């Protein structure tokens, strides 16, 4: 694969009820990403936006940010899915030979709608919706299956939450930097057994932007380019009943593709850090297994061992992860932005020392039906 780098990144501060509108957030990150890369809008020859109609309450929601994302004057497209998939689209457009530099902008405002109703609409209108399924209770189903099958405990899940909210204290963009204990998590309000409030990501508003560039076009930039070493994406089937919710085959398939491309055979040894999409605490444990950091069912023990803590062998979510800020669609792009900052050595208080290879992960659909994974390297 030809060498393509990420040369600029930007994020808004994530918060609930941001007073900014969608286009104001998009413009903020587009401008900041250009500044970060040291290029101007004229250097951008195409864009990819990531928006979702249901979350925004507007059909053709990409229209809202056409001007603000710099998409009015250059070829553009809209990936209605996680920001990681937007970067994949941006990458393919460059690899096709027709473009040099892609600006990718993702945004959403969870505060404008009612997340329970919006995520209820994910489910099949004939069979599933009437059951009142939404993101939280479907996750509860998955968590229960996973915990039951492998003997994962609620305490082990809670440890993810404790770790990530503490990591968020080092991240100026995070919405929920918190000092909490396992006990705090276990005592927090039950939302849908076994998922409690502190096991759950918040409702967030925010945007993120990333600029990709072909190697030949990166010479003029000031910052250290971060290379895309590998990428993979994969989708499981749709109906919850057709899936083994404790299974992570889709992630494994995406990871295999990304690792093969990047030449990685022992992920737990060769990767410096991972930014993964932990919409719920149990998810981080499942994704560790899917990413090959441990065997199936080993997620809980891995968490207990301290392997994924800051200062451990493979810190996971030094940024605080999605548990600390969950602007839908932008959250996956933020994983990439954070990974880039780490590899540049610009991650400030949350820096993982000597970071050389990082993973950035995003999910799509209910209970992680789809996965997209990037391997980035300095």
């Amino acid at each position: 694969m030809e060498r393509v780098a990420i040369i600029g990144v930007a994020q808004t501060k994530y918060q609930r009820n941001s007073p900014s509108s969608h286009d104001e957030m998009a413009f903020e990150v587009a401008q900041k990403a250009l500044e970060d890369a040291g290029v101007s809008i004229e250097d951008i020859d195409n864009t990819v936006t990531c928006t979702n109609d249901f979350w925004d309450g507007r059909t053709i929601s990409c229209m809202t940010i056409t001007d603000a994302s710099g998409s009015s004057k250059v070829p553009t497209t809209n990936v209605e899915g996680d920001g990681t998939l937007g970067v994949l689209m941006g990458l393919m457009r460059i690899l096709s030979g027709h473009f040099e530099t892609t600006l990718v902008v993702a945004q959403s405002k969870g505060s404008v709608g009612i997340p329970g109703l919006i995520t209820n609409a994910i489910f099949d209108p004939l069979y599933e919706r009437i059951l009142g399924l939404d993101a939280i209770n479907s996750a509860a189903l998955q968590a229960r299956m996973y915990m039951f099958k492998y003997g994962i405990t609620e305490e082990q899940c809670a440890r993810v939450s404790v770790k990530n909210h503490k990591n968020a204290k080092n991240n100026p963009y995070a919405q929920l930097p918190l000092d909490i204990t396992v006990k705090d998590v276990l005592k927090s309000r039950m939302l849908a057994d076994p998922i409690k409030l502190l096991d759950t990501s918040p409702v967030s508003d925010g945007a993120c932007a990333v600029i990709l560039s072909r190697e030949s076009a990166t010479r003029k930039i000031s910052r250290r380019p971060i290379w895309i070493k590998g990428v993979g994406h994969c989708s499981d089937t749709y109906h919850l009943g057709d899936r083994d919710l404790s299974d992570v085959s889709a992630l494994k398939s995406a990871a295999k593709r990304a690792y093969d491309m990047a030449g990685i055979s022992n992920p737990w040894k060769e990767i410096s850090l991972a930014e993964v999409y932990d919409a719920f605490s149990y998810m981080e444990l499942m994704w560790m297994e899917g990413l090959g950091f441990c065997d199936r069912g080993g997620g809980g023990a891995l968490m207990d061992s301290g392997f994924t803590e800051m200062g451990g062998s493979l810190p996971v979510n030094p940024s605080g992860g999605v548990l600390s800020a969950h602007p839908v669609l932008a959250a996956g792009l933020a994983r990439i932005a954070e990974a880039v900052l780490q590899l540049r050595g610009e991650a400030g208080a949350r820096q993982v020392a000597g970071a050389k290879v990082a993973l950035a992960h995003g999910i799509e659909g209910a209970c992680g039906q789809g996965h997209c994974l990037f391997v980035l390297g300095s």
Partner: protein
Amino acid sequence: MSSQKQEEKSEELLSISSIVDVPYNYNAGYYVSQYLRELKENGRILGVKCPKCQKVYVPPRVVCSQCFVQTKEFVPVSDTGTVKAFCVVTVPYTNPNTGEPKKLPFTCAYIKLDGSDSNIMHCLEEVDEKKIRAGMRVQAVFNEIRTGDHFTDIKHFKII
């Protein structure tokens, strides 16, 4: 298959009606907030000027799409302008803002207000297409009671 069997077969096909009802609380953001506030409090229409190309855009927005530069200066524009294009809509549909059927006929018009470089979309009082032409001059008619919630502080535009 005989036609009777076909009829029976299609009677077996079910469909289920449901309504997806998701309420939204939209943020106006800084620029639209200024616009709506000025409409409500002073009965004036604001545009925003691009510091680079000097174009004035109504409604105000954060960025000039041509220059990709942040707009900062708010500029009042006239309440009078020219119809650039229009159509008289008679096809029934549900107004997604209210859930009620849209009141018909209504005239959707693109109007270039004096002092603005872009067109705004609003409606005309006149709904007879024989009496409307592009190029006609129109003036905003403001509602007596203005709420600032909605662009309907301008009731419609009348032909002058």
